């Protein structure tokens, strides 16, 4: 019942988001017809193209038309490239997904030990140093961090390429070298957020009675930390990971531009510059669906981590 309720709510969110974006994109100045034909085209040619593309229909009709297509998996055909938007997105999606997953693996892989170490020594030198470091990471815009990393690793030391992308299918090794720098750039900020969240929650958990009692049973600090304290402290972290995964699909725009990766973000930016509404709209759908799906998954993960939630 709860699951169904949530699914319906998420579906409503999807419809509202796509409608808003559709309207907004169409209300903005700029015209795909001008973009295609140029400023010197005759009024007649423009009208004909308008009709061809279906742009003479009212906005609502166009939206419903597009939504109906979407329900059958059809994202529409780009006005500009005359290519199906769906296949274009499908081609770009693996790049963005790989980047996202790699960034989360790096962020979580480091955030858990860092957060645990800081919580164990709360208030002491190591904790303060880690807190300061994560604060600094949080305050570094991705493009600044990306530029610095390129400067150090690609320009000065030349251990990885500065830009470019090699698909996994071509060569795994090259693929990894091309994803490592963007993934670190994207993951650094997340690392800081995750480590801070985990630290705060762990400190609270470590003050619980059941932790003191675990000590009273003669269990080692290591065992108490990893087996007793970590899981009850993970709820906020999981929420954050979920929200981030959803939000980051749009946030890879900068990274993909900076590192020249052919991902969804890059496609959206290029489409914005070329007034390719339907492709932008397709990107929006992809991002919103991603957000919604991730959120739904997070709810399921909650129940796995905290048995108290299963009751609800």
């Amino acid at each position, binding site marked *: 019942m709860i699951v169904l309720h949530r699914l319906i*709510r998420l579906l409503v*969110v999807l419809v509202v988001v796509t409608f808003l*974006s559709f309207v*907004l*994109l169409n209300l*903005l*100045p*700029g015209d795909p017809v001008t973009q295609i034909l140029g400023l010197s085209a005759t009024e007649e040619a423009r009208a004909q193209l308008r009709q061809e593309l279906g742009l003479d229909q009212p906005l609502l009709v166009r939206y419903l038309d597009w939504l109906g297509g979407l329900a059958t998996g059809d994202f529409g055909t780009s006005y500009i490239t005359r290519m199906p938007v769906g296949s274009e997105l499908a081609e770009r999606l693996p790049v963005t997904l790989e980047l996202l997953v790699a960034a989360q693996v790096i962020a979580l892989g480091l955030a858990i030990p860092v957060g645990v170490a800081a919580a164990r020594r709360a*208030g*002491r030198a190591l904790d303060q140093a880690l807190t300061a470091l994560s604060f*600094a990471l*949080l*305050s*570094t*815009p991705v*493009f*600044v961090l990306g*530029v610095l990393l*390129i*400067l150090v690793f690609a*320009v000065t030391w030349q251990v990885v390429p500065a830009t470019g992308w090699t698909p996994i299918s071509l060569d795994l090794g090259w693929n990894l070298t091309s994803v490592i720098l963007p993934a670190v750039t994207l993951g650094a900020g997340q690392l800081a957020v995750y480590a801070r969240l985990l630290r*705060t929650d762990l*400190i*609270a958990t470590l003050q619980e*009675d*059941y932790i*003191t*009692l675990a*000590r*009273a*049973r*003669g*269990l*080692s600090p290591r*065992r108490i930390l990893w*087996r*007793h304290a970590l*899981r*009850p402290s993970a709820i906020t972290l999981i929420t954050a990971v979920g929200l981030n995964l*959803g939000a980051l699909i*749009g*946030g890879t*725009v*900068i990274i993909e*531009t*900076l590192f020249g990766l052919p991902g969804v973000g890059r496609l959206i*930016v290029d489409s*914005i*510059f070329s*007034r390719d509404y339907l492709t*932008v709209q397709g*990107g*929006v759908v992809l*991002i919103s669906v991603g957000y*919604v799906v991730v959120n739904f998954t997070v709810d399921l993960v909650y129940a796995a*981590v*905290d*048995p*108290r939630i299963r*009751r609800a």
Partner: protein
Amino acid sequence: MRRRQGLGFWLALGWIGLILLAALLADLLPFARYDETLAGPPQSGPSAAHPFGTDGLGRDVLSRVVYGARVSLGVGIGAVLLGLGIGAPLGILAGYRRKAADAVIMAVNDVAQAFPALVFALAVVAFAGANLRNVLIVLGVLGVPSWVRLIRGATLTFAEREFVLAARVLGTRDRRILWREIVPNVAVPAASYAFIGMAVVVVAEGSLAFLGLSVQAPTPTWGGLINEGRTLMETAPHVVLAPSIAMFLTVLSFNLVGDRLRSLTDVRESGLEPVRQAAPALPATTHPVRDVLLQVEDLRTHFVTPRGLVKAVDGVSFTLERGRTLAIVGESGSGKSMLIRSILGLLPGTSVRGGNVYLAGDDLTSYTAAEMRSVLGPRLGTVFQDPMTALNPVRTIGTQVMEPLRVHMSLTRRQARAEAAKLLASVGIPDPVRILRRYPHQLSGGMRQRVTIAMALSCRPDVLFADEPTTALDVTIQDQVLRLLHRQREERDMAVVLVSHDLSVVARWADEVIVMYAGKVVERGPAAEVFARPRMPYTEALLQAAPRLTDPVHHRLRVIPGRPPDLVDLPEGCAFRARCAYADERCEREAPPLFEDGHDRRRYACWHPRTQAQDGTAAAPSSDVTDVAEGAESGGR
């Protein structure tokens, strides 16, 4: 209490001030204008004339960074004000007029979070024109949902507070309440978020500029400068580094100031400040080691708190033999629980412990952490007050009961499971095999306390410490649990240390009693003797405060006047004197030692001991009336 903000906060404020000032006075500063080409040789490094060097066209980088600050800070301030202007009234309304607005806000939040904000900022700016006004409006509007959420949250916490409810009850007009009570209280979180919002907007504007979608050339922006600079990275890295560092420092400063302002109002983190100073070390003492199971000699535990030194346990001594129950009684804050934790060595890191604890002649205070762990569980078992918080909520009962068995007794998983089922059965849990698979929240309070007792008993301890084991339970369950403890003591020939403020429990189950007040033992002896003939006025008062079945109808319970003393910097003399009817000058000057009364085990600390049973106090409180005995504890937990 005013908290120090630290050097970082002031440095951050200083940097923000400096950047603001430089941006405002850019035209007056003595450097070439941002667009003057060939102000110096192109791509030259830092020099006296051009502190940050020059870019590819020979333009002064310092000048370009300072002029870039105008755009960043201008957009930042404008967008934050716009977001606040729209978001704050909506947020206050939503928080104050809860019902209708709540649903709307939730829905809007859902949509706003699923909305790809950056993509929209890009689209709007690209289509509507990349200029200062459009960037400012877009970033301002995109910030509105966060502002609404924040202000609504802050309003909600205050709208439910007593002073606002009181004003509402008094019929004060809503508008007046909003302006007088709510707006001033929401101001601090709003100010904090304004700084954090500045950081967010500066980064967002930078991102747009980096993609070429902010204020257009020739006006410099930080994001644009970084984008330009990265093409020169190999030959002139300073061109990209200068705006990067300026941007980093600015964002860091805004975040830092916002974070510090937030922590002013956040009570959750206020307890985490490190106490740098440890309590002064306590002198080592030597005692004759007696042939008993547990001997505690002159145990002391001191803490340094922000307010001063707290002597939570102050020179407690006792001995305990196998098969006997020792009760420790006293009001909340008398040091009972702290005494238990001191014996077990489960103290927070900032405390200092003195004295000795001998377990069958071995000094536990000389044990290393690892040695202590081998004693905790197998020789010393522990049960805490609240079974709701004593079990880990995310692990099954089975995992938790089996763990000490596997760690200390090296049982296999299968053996441990069988043993755990036996243990649960022995503490009266029906269908133990099924319960092993359950989670704590699926059991009742009484069941949970049985589980924690089973866990404490699992490694066959010699001494069981039970810290108010029944206080959090239903009256009907209390007696069952105490019977269980008693029966286990008999069966396993253990000693039990029972902490309680419930005198009827103590009278019925304890062999010996220790009465604690302000961290010290004020009376001790065999339970029957102490109850029949209390010597210390505090013990007497405790007994009189406990109701008895033999009391006549409408009998008035006596309460102990005053409150337990503040343990920070206790004055000299007897700690109880302020609440004592018999106190005189001597009590003021000198703390009474523990006088011996007849024999070594019977002692009291008082200059004016009660000599005979006062009216009606001779009878021990009836153990049949466990429910009303709570009155003995005047301080709430």
